[in-house]
């Protein structure tokens, strides 16, 4: 299909002195240096940013980033797809290589969102749901309430996701929140949307991540190349009155990806999933088939998704602790998998890590997600 030969990632967190462009350029340069590929060899650029138009009035930012990297004249494509902006750019880059359009492409996701007055993320002011008070934490809080009602999932199990996340992030110098928290501290943090407290919601962040992708032929000489086994992008089904504790879009996207990769959940050694809220990680365990429906709370409590457990999830710290610069996230997840699959993840290295899965979702519509991506990488 294609391989990843280079990765770049900046620190995540408030970076008031940086611009979207400077963050994107830093990540892009690191990715090119990682694989020692000249910028002159890049045949196309894919750039993800979700909020620049809304916050700064900036559009077609990708061309600004790639021009500073000396990558001109070639196709540059800008993507906005909510929280999957980055993974969508990756998906498109992959198609470009699969179609034989380019041998080497650079994918960059960059976001700057730590600005005064951002408020809570919503689906846009023209939407009736937004005008009736829908904000993203509320959407997940309602799923949490129903999961607790259906399966007896507890507040402590929700909090255990954050406790694990902070423990992992302490091993990642680029993560935003690296201080350990206890279950009691998580539950005592300010309430956002019941039952979710602040420590159970991912922080906004400034940051960027980048990948260099190459065709199999081009990458033959790269010993640290990581194979892309499958990448799937879907949108929601928006099935009204569905079971909101079992995310059909998650299940459908994961199933398609497993089929394409010719593997099942048991073959996965590490997962980076879209833990925007604690309940989200629990729902994704179930959607990705890491446990049976309703058992996500027990799974996190058992320690099986911690570093050293059966199937470590969000060893990078995930969105909850690494931080969530929206359009960088989908690429940052893949960067983490590449670190792990190359056995270059340092103190947070997952042992005998051969196959990794990244899952990302974005946007709200009619009680569903608008966009979902699942990618499987292997060495």
């Amino acid at each position, binding site marked *: 299909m294609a391989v990843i030969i280079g990765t770049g990632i900046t620190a995540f967190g408030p970076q008031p002195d940086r611009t979207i462009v400077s963050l994107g350029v830093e990540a892009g340069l690191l990715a090119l240096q990682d694989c020692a590929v000249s910028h002159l060899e890049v045949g196309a650029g894919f750039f993800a940013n979700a909020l620049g138009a809304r916050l700064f009035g900036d559009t077609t930012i990708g061309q600004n980033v790639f021009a500073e990297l000396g990558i001109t004249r070639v196709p540059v494509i800008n993507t906005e797809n909510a929280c999957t902006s980055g993974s969508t750019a990756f998906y498109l880059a992959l198609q470009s290589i699969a179609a034989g359009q380019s041998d080497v492409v650079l994918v960059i996701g960059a976001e700057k969102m730590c600005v005064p007055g951002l408020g809570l993320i919503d689906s846009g002011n*023209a939407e009736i749901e937004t005008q*009736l*008070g829908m904000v993203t934490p509320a959407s997940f809080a309602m799923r*949490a309430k129903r999961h607790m009602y259906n399966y007896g999932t507890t507040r402590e199990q929700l909090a255990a996701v954050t406790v694990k996340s902070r423990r992992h992030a302490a091993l990642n110098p680029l993560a935003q929140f690296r201080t350990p928290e206890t279950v009691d501290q998580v539950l005592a943090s300010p309430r*956002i949307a019941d*039952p979710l407290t602040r420590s159970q919601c991912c922080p906004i962040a400034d940051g960027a991540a980048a990948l260099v992708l190459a065709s199999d032929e081009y990458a033959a000489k790269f010993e640290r190349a990581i194979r892309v086994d499958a990448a799937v992008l879907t949108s929601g089904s928006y099935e009204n009155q569905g079971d*909101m504790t079992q995310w059909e879009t998650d299940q459908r996207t994961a199933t398609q990806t497993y089929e394409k990769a010719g593997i099942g959940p048991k073959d996965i050694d590490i997962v980076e999933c879209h833990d925007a809220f604690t309940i989200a990680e629990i729902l994704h365990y179930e959607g990705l088939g890491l446990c049976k429906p309703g058992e996500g709370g027990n799974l996190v409590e058992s320690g099986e998704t911690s570093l050293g457990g059966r199937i470590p999830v969000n060893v990078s710290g995930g969105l909850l602790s690494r931080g969530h610069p929206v359009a960088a996230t989908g690429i940052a997840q893949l960067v983490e998998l590449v670190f792990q699959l190359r056995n270059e993840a340092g103190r947070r290295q997952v042992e005998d890590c051969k196959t990794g899965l990244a899952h990302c979702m974005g946007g709200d519509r009619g009680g569903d997600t608008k966009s979902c991506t699942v990618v499987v990488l292997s060495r």
Partner: protein
Amino acid sequence: MADLPPVAENIYVPSKDGFELVGAYCDHCEKCFFPLREHCSNCLGDTTQTSLGSRGVVYSFTIVRTKPPFALPQPYGVAYIDLAGCPLRVFCLLDPQQLGKIHIGSPVRLWVGPMGVNNAGQPCLRPFFRLLNNPSEQ
């Protein structure tokens, strides 16, 4: 209250004992939609405007305690309501006076009142659900 504009057009209408939600109906597919839309997303045929009734049951809910958008009350409640009159789940506000009294499975009905501001920053009316047997009306 009559002087204030609704938060958006065509989402509710007055009825003889309160208010009803307004949605779209496809005769061909026998499907309801909320909010109103011109075409059925199943067959792409034209829809007609229809009443979705005023009653339902809470599927799930939350109380948002952080700084609210649109000058909504702090805290404010929202819910997914499974409507009684048609097979449809809608997202809506809850009566700010009844937070803590409304739970999953609570029977509720639609009401309308002044709440927050609209996209233009003007005070406006918003629909919300309250307990079917509203204690303040007894």
